[in-house]
């Protein structure tokens, strides 16, 4: 199954956020609890951790690039060989949690 990873809803006044670092490359597998990506708001670092085992399949916003809350960050899947959909509209969200560092 394919899952999307979006920028979480952060604080009310967070505008654009910057992707600081991806903790893996496309094709890498994550265990539940592993850090996938770090974002930087105007005042804090936001760590996004996997809430389920997954394989990172697509990075939509690379390190140093900017995005807003709710925007797609990337795609994951249960196994590395699942075909990615052409249309991501119906794709469900990856279980994930974020922590303000």
């Amino acid at each position, binding site marked *: 199954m394919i899952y999307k990873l979006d920028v979480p809803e952060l604080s009310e*006044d*967070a*505008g*654009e956020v*910057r992707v600081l670092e991806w903790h893996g490359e496309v094709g890498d597998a994550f265990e539940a609890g592993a850090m996938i990506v770090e974002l930087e*708001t*105007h*005042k804090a670092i936001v760590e996004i951790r996997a809430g389920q085992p997954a394989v990172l399949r697509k990075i939509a916003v690379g390190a140093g690039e*900017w995005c807003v809350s709710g925007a797609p960050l990337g795609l994951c899947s249960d196994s590395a060989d699942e075909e990615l959909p052409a249309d991501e509209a119906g794709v469900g969200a990856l279980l994930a949690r974020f922590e303000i560092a």
Partner: protein
Amino acid sequence: MPNEKIFYREGIARALHEAMAADERVFVMGQDVGAFGGAYREFDGLHAAFGPERVRDMPVAEAAMVGIGLGAAAAGMRPVVSVTYMDFLMLALDPLVNYGAKLRFKTAGKLTAPLVVITTAGAKGQGVAHSQCIEAWLMGVPGLKVVAPATPDDAYGLMRAALAADGPVVYVAHKKLFPMAGACGAGDVPMGAANIIRAGRDVTITAHSYMTRIALAAADNLSVEGISCEIVDIRSLRPLDVGLVAASVARTGALVTLEEGQLACGVGGEIAARVREALGPLPVQRIGARAAPVSSNPVLERACIPDAARVAAETRRFILNDATSRWRAG
């Protein structure tokens, strides 16, 4: 990196970092400016790069910090003093106004005080004594310079200009601008140069700092109705770029001044008078805070501070009712 997108706070930190690397006389003092990186992270990375001697955490003692800064400046250093909230700059007005701003005059130019005081103005839910915009108080002090950047690019460029100036500069950041990201051209922004940030035909709206965002939003609303607003970001309050504002008003035929601070003896009143002196009679409308303290109650805070709807409504009423405006005549 030219035109790299950065946060507003990074414009400040970048200019400071470059100046500290280039000139060992530059140092920073203030509350939480050290390892913490500043209340808004505007000093991020400086402590790690330059150490505690040059990035000095200080007790909550504004008068002492500015006084020490001035003494160091007079002795040849180039200090940057952070007063976290502009409200508490009041405690440091004696050293700043009575000594710093006057030093060059009192010594016939033998001494200067190249001090930058960086502070934050504006309402963001913090109540009566952490929300004020008192930059207009400072505009009447000969010898003082006052800048108020509204974008990451100007945050960088005006900090560079402030660090290069030969007299005290008050650098007014705004709490609501810190989340803003934007391109930084890594160029100089001269002090005393306003900037047209939206071209228009029917009315000139002046604003500085966060109120430029409100002016732009109001102009969007009014453009739907066919009212075309030219927005001037004042950027530098003293010296004031009267020439650019007057040239804009000469084209549009009407002036609205917008500020977050109080209207009485405010930024707008000064701009209106100076433009009137340059152009002759002109239709003018001031918009600013209600004559009340800014409450920590969010409803009352919003009621006090101009928002886009109020700016659009007051500009619309002004344009449509003022018989001398070009809009009316045309």
